[in-house]
């Protein structure tokens, strides 16, 4: 932060940077070709976004020139902050990048037409060629792509040039249309609960996707609604912020109560599929909240977290199912839950004890190992007398609450159960974060040696993180057992650990809201390891997208979707310091005298 002047310097727009042009064009061409060969256009063509204009399949290609072109515009880095430099050259730049991306597809079309290497590349198919040439002749298709790519690139470039307000408006409109289309199942289901089918019938096409009028309506709403309420929200917010502390906490409490009441009645307005979907999301919210304590707060990279989920699930199964092969007390679920929590906590201690003496990479690898060992134990012949080996344990009865039974047959009841436990988990995370032990966890995450030197018993504190994390996972495991009714070792693959971790990272490490948003977005929309999300057609590409998202997040937004203020400071230290300096929050000298 050695800034010399406080005024905004005048920016000279540089000429076309050819290297940057070529780089972005190549990225565009290669990504387009890659996406096409990964099978996304053909695989996702069934799903309409806007009927009959746009399908998910075409969208998987069309975003490339648009987004890359808007990124390709010239930027300067000013004292640590990137700043857009606007000039008409960016339109040219965008168009060129769009053209480049289109040429990638054209080259692919020529190759697909003339050669056949379908053997290794399953998607090297006539269907792909048909799709790429819009079911016309290939030549016409190529011309079409070039025009389309260039236009989209031009529009992307325009995004770079227009004032920020216009840019964000446009993005809001585009994303709203996309969101309303993607959330179709959910919205239809919800509005059906309120007897408002007229509306959904109007905007949605019978076999999925928005009608053109529907899309226009959504776009119009996306423009009008912010105009109507935009200011009012900030006004109310500032008014709440300026209230005295006790009044403010009363307002917060009321908001919280209203919010929870709404959430509790929500399941009754939703259909089976949506309840099921949200119940799955809830199971992952529970898991992610637990892992968030271990990874996000205490900074222990646990890659075998699924172990605790498995222990919770299997213990519930053994204790409640009449089919449990060894020991079968057939306890009611709530009683079993107490044993499950205690036992999983103990397993947390048991696994944690050897592991927490290690650091960094070693710890990650060893936890990965433990995660697999636990699953293999449940699978093994040695313990099959207890856990049924590959046959697993079936006939798990669910939760008897007197007037009803909570089990997978009635997803609504499961969703309610998940909601209750998520509330408990959120409360636990929130209280612990703002307590002596939470501060100790954060200190360990920041600098373990110093934490130790400042009197924090790191061994016990880290073990406690493991145990609390394990207990939250056991909630999820217990509900999972009751939900699916039968469990097998294959329900607890290592992939689950990884997906929970991705949820935590994408949502925002160390941040409760972030973790919930992460689970909603990833599990709700893309789907979990076995559970379909709203975009069922995506299941084939789920892991690809998870991976791409993770890489992109790590590069561009390491603090996650909903950043924890602290983490984002850590990761954007430079920029933050810059901001703070500009706002005068940082002291650059020490002229003031102590009083």
């Amino acid at each position, binding site marked *: 932060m050695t800034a010399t002047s406080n005024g905004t310097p005048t920016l000279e727009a540089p000429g076309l940077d050819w290297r940057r042009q070529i780089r972005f064009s190549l990225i565009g061409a290669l990504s387009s070709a890659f996406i096409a060969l990964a099978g996304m256009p053909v695989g996702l063509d069934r799903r309409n976004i806007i009927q009959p204009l746009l399908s998910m399949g075409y969208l998987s290609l069309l975003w490339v020139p648009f987004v890359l072109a808007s990124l390709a515009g010239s930027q300067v880095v000013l004292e640590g902050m990137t700043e857009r430099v606007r000039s008409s050259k960016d339109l040219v730049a965008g168009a060129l990048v769009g053209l480049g991306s289109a040429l990638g597809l054209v080259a692919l079309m020529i190759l697909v037409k003339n050669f056949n290497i379908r053997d290794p590349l399953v998607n090297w198919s006539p269907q792909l060629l048909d799709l790429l040439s819009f079911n016309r002749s290939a030549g016409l298709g190529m011309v079409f792509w070039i025009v389309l790519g260039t236009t989209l690139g031009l529009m992307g470039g325009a995004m770079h040039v227009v004032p920020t307000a216009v840019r964000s408006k446009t993005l809001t409109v585009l994303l709203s249309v996309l969101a309303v289309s993607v959330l179709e199942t959910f919205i239809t289901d919800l509005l059906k609960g309120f007897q408002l089918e007229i509306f959904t019938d109007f905007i949605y096409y019978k076999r999925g996707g928005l009608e053109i009028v529907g899309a226009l309506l959504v776009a119009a709403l996306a423009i009008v609604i912010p105009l109507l309420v935009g200011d009012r929200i900030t006004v109310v917010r500032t008014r709440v912020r300026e209230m005295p502390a006790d009044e403010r906490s009363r307002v917060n409490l009321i908001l919280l109560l209203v919010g929870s009441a709404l959430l509790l009645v929500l399941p009754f307005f939703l259909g089976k599929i949506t309840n099921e979907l949200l119940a799955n999301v809830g199971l992952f919210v529970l898991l992610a909240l637990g892992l968030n304590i271990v990874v996000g707060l205490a900074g222990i990279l646990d890659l075998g977290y699924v172990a605790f989920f498995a222990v919770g699930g299997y213990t519930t199964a053994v204790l409640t199912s009449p089919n449990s092969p060894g020991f079968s007390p057939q306890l009611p679920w709530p009683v079993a839950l107490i044993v499950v929590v205690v036992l999983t906590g103990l397993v947390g201690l048991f696994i944690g004890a050897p592991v927490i003496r290690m650091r960094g990479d070693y710890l990650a690898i060893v936890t990965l190992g433990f995660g697999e060992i636990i699953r293999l134990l449940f699978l093994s012949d040695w313990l099959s007398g207890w856990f049924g080996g590959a046959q697993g344990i079936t006939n798990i009865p669910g939760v008897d609450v007197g007037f009803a039974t909570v089990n997978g047959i009635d997803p609504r009841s499961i969703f309610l159960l998940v909601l209750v436990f998520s509330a408990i988990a959120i*409360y*636990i995370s929130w*209280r*612990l974060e*703002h*307590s*002596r*032990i*939470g*501060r*100790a966890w*954060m*200190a360990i995450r*920041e*600098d373990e*040696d*110093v*934490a*130790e*030197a*400042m*009197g*924090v*018993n*790191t061994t016990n504190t880290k073990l*406690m993180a493991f145990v*609390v994390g394990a207990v939250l996972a056991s909630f999820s495991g217990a509900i999972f057992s009751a939900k699916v009714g039968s469990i097998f070792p294959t329900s607890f693959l290592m992939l689950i650990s990884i997906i929970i971790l991705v949820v935590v990272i994408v949502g925002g490490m160390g941040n409760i809201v972030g973790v919930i948003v992460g689970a909603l977005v990833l599990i709700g929309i893309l789907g979990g390891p076995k559970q379909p999300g709203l975009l069922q057609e995506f299941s084939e590409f789920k892991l690809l997208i998870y991976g791409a998202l993770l890489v992109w997040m790590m590069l561009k937004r390491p603090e996650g979707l909903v950043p924890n203020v*602290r*983490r984002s*400071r*850590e990761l954007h*230290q430079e920029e*933050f*310091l810059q901001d*703070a300096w500009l706002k005068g*929050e*940082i*002291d*650059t*000298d*020490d002229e*003031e*005298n*102590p*009083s």
Partner: protein
Amino acid sequence: MLQISDLSVTFGGLHALRNLDFQVTEGEIVSVIGPNGAGKTTFFNMISGMVTPTSGDIVFEGESLLGLDPSQVTERGIARTFQNVRLFANMTILENVMVAQHCRTDQKVFGALFQTNAFKSEENAIREYGEEVLSFFGTRLTGYRLEQPASVLSYANRRRLEIARAMATRPRLLLLDEPVAGMNPRESAELTALIGRLRSEWGFTIVIIEHDMSVVRDVSDRVVVLDHGESIAHGSYEQVANDPNVIEAYLGRQVQDEQAEEETSP
């Protein structure tokens, strides 16, 4: 208060400290000086339990500290700062001094979850003591600063917060590793005065590593000089400053170095 006898530590073949004897009596301010690489920081690391000595003994208030974890040493009443400022950068300023009271408090998960009265009053006490410690440095670390992350602080303020964090552990012996490094003369004069007050008002016994001789002269009752891991002189500032061994350690080496340089360069 602190007796160190015949203490040695080696890193591989390197003798970082050799047969060191050292004591501090309650209420003293002792400076440890010496050229770079003399082993001063290693000396602190050893007292605070971060490095295990190869031989010798460290006795604090009648009990040996050998084999204790750093957190246990802190619990016994020894706190330290770090030469290369190691704050919890993404925790707030207040949280930095709150977490340092960890070993003086004992509320666990249960209290936090059920918000027991014991938990709430302890939490308030932690906060109040934290603010008290911070206000020792004037208004720089208090007020709106309390909720800011430590990373926004200026260099001098980071050093101050390090000291505040060490104070928050409620020590009896305070080890300060180059507390004025990087400060301008005015700031270091001010901190020198504060170090005096740490003894008179807070009752800390202090061992301080310092390169700035004016600070050493102003604060210390006694000075110990280390060179190559050995104690080569001790006594009052004047005695040490005129000790030929010390002058050789600081200057003689320089002269030799210069000669060596002249010989190697054509």
